[in-house]
């Protein structure tokens, strides 16, 4: 702990620049003025308000407002500071020095998250003390206060770590990883963390009510704030692991292969835990919802763990050419979808789903995902030869997703089911569910569509030994990607 915080040179370095007395007093004056203003306006409203205030309402109101202020400080202001920390190092050309500091990656993460936010944390600590004090006066239960503090801190860890991780964009690969990260964060966890914030902002009186709200997780009732905080902690820890990875060596993808599998496994455990109770009650909507929630990370995680064609070249050795296939993105995709299938089987068994129906759905979803992931791999292997191929493949993906829907609007029939979106939609609408033969055709169509990218990819894989030989023959100059 001492190495991470107390004697962390990065924290000391930020202390010297951020907490100079010449500027500190200005920040403290502004902060004190804002707090006093809030108290003053609330006391005026309590005294001269039109409607009579119930007992403790004044302190409840102050409690809610300062809590909102605390969330702004910890989740927004601090996150902004964390997001700009590495970008500032890069812009100021001090990043090499930063990377070379003989400190562990964890020390560096603590150095930024705490050091860069020293002023923010100082004000957050003062606000938290006021929040707890007003909560005491407002007779907010201690257990609820503890849960709120837990959510505040864990979501702060999550938001700060996710922005710090995504700010590490010193190269094009990392910039792509950053985009991936934002997509992952927005889709997977954004709504969960924003809900408590809106709940707090909505009405002070509802603060106490939230104590009774709980989530059924594998049938165990967990208070909602505790559950949200635990989720934030789960994702926050993964973020920290990602930053450690990125700070250790440059150009690494967000997830190692093992981490990608573990992350998905953890996510599926959480998703199943949340959806299992309604599944056991045979809730019709939950079953398709399971497919939606569980498959999205399996499709998005490959973006964050993508190996490039350069990596393939680097790892290929004549003695173990089979190793390339073991190291390729496609085997990771296979592993991810194997996990997804296992959890889907468990979900189907728990929900006593019709076996034929289940197989059709899984095969359909899997076939769509295969097409998308093969297009992604096509991008990986051909990007060095055709730098703009991403544009073409992106266009194809849009066509693939949207064209059947447009055709369905024009000619009707089952065309919509040939789009991934349409296929998912029919899961939620039992009355419009596709006939089994249509689903079989969907799978066949996707299998046919997979063939072209699969052939092109295998051709490119096969070119690797030749490229390596060319490199060995003429090492000093750039060997162009023209062998295939």
């Amino acid at each position: 702990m001492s190495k991470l915080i107390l004697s962390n040179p990065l924290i000391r370095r930020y202390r010297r620049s951020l907490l100079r007395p010449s500027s500190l007093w200005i920040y403290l004056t502004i902060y004190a003025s804002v707090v006093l203003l809030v108290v003053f306006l609330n006391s005026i409203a309590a005294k001269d308000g039109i409607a009579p205030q119930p007992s403790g309402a004044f302190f409840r109101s102050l409690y809610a407002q300062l809590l909102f202020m605390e969330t702004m400080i910890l989740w927004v202001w601090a996150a902004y500071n964390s997001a700009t920390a590495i970008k500032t190092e890069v812009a100021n050309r001090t990043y090499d020095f930063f990377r070379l500091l003989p400190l562990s990656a964890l020390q560096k993460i603590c150095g930024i998250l705490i050091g860069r936010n020293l002023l923010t944390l100082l004000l957050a600590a003062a606000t938290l003390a006021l929040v707890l004090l007003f909560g005491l006066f407002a007779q907010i239960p201690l257990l609820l206060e503890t849960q709120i503090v837990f959510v505040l801190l864990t979501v702060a860890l999550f938001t700060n770590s996710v922005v710090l991780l995504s700010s590490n964009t010193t190269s094009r690969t990392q910039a792509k990883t950053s985009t991936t990260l934002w997509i992952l964060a927005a889709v997977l966890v954004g709504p969960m963390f924003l809900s408590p914030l809106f709940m707090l902002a909505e009405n002070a009186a509802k603060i106490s009510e939230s104590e009774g709200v709980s989530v059924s997780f594998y049938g165990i009732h967990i208070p909602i704030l505790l559950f949200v905080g635990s989720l934030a902690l789960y994702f926050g820890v993964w973020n920290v692991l990602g930053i450690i990875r990125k700070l250790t060596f440059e150009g690494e993808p967000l997830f190692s292969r093992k981490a990608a599998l573990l992350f998905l496994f953890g996510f599926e455990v959480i998703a199943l835990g949340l959806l299992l109770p309604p599944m056991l009650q045979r809730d019709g909507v939950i079953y398709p919802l399971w497919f939606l929630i569980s498959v999205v990370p399996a499709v998005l995680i490959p973006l964050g763990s993508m190996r490039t064609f350069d990596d393939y070249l680097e790892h290929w050795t004549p003695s173990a050419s089979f190793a390339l296939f073991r190291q390729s993105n496609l085997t990771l995709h296979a592993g991810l979808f194997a996990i997804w299938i296992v959890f889907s089987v468990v979900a189907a068994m728990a929900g006593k789903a019709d076996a034929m129906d289940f197989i059709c759905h899984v095969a359909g979803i899997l076939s769509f995902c295969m097409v998308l992931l093969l297009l992604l791999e096509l991008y990986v292997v051909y990007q060095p030869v055709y730098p703009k191929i991403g544009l073409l493949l992106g266009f194809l993906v849009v066509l693939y997703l949207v064209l059947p829907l447009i055709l369905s609007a024009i000619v009707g029939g089952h065309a919509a089911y040939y789009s991934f979106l349409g296929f998912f939609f029919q899961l939620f609408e039992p009355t419009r569910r596709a006939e089994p033969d249509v689903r079989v055709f969907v799978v066949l169509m996707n299998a046919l569509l997979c063939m072209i990218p699969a052939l092109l990819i295998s051709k490119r894989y096969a070119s690797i030994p030749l490229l390596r030989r060319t490199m060995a023959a003429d090492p000093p100059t750039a060997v162009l990607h023209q062998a295939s």
Partner: protein
Amino acid sequence: MATTVLETNHLTKEYGTLVALEDVNLSLQQGHVLGLIGPNGAGKTTLLRILATLVRPTAGSVRVLGHDLAREYLAIRGHIGFLPDFFNLYGDLSLRECLWFFAEAYGVPPERISGRVDEALEYIDLRDKQDSLVRHLSRGMVQRTGVGIRMVHDPDLYLLDEPASGLDPKARIQLRNVIRRLACDGKTIVISSHILTELSGFCSHVAIMDKGRTRLFGAVEEIQRRIAGARRVEITVLSDCPQAAEVAGNFPGARVTTVHENTLTVELSGDARQMAALNAHLVNGGIEVIGFSEHKADLEELFMKVSSEAESQP
């Protein structure tokens, strides 16, 4: 026995199909000063960034003071002082605070930090600026401070990538003096530059790089001798230069190459004793010798020679 500070074996770095470094083998003992010479794109920066643990090599190994770079990069970072080609320092800190931060980060014991910072300030001759914010310093001062921040933890190996690029002549000379002083103090230094005059005079070793390969690596004197083939001796006489040329030409192993006014250049095979014998031979032959010195090829000559040899190869 001298300590091996740096050792690379078959070091290779590939970026996809581009081979940035290939089969680089270097070995430096304590006190050696290695000049990395080569045109832009030769692989100098890649090599330095690998040695600095910033870039992972594709193949080969690097050992710094016995530590393996692949496994013990954190330990290595404590032993090196790397100065990248384009860098800046923390503008929101004063010069003293900046040096203090690096001393703390590199694990200098707290009771010794103040002394080290004072020493570094003296060394880079910026004591009078110690309380100025770094953002207010000139480019030359920042560059010297760069050397200063690397000095505070007293590294065993300095890695300096084009340290004088972008500096005006005065700042360049000041920086060169700082580096010369480090060299005189017995520090092991790897310094890259494509301005060869910057390196001349204080490099004990030289590695000429081209297209990712080391075309030549070794001690400067050894390379000079190997490339020149024979010693080149410049002899200045008081008068009668043709007779001096004739006497010198009669000496075994000597060949007069040029005669210009009262100076003649002689190629001589053999060691320093042979040179002394030639001098005695001239004096005994009645030649009034007023100058007798060995001409050593400078780095520029070496580089041009190696480059032209490399180009002439198929």
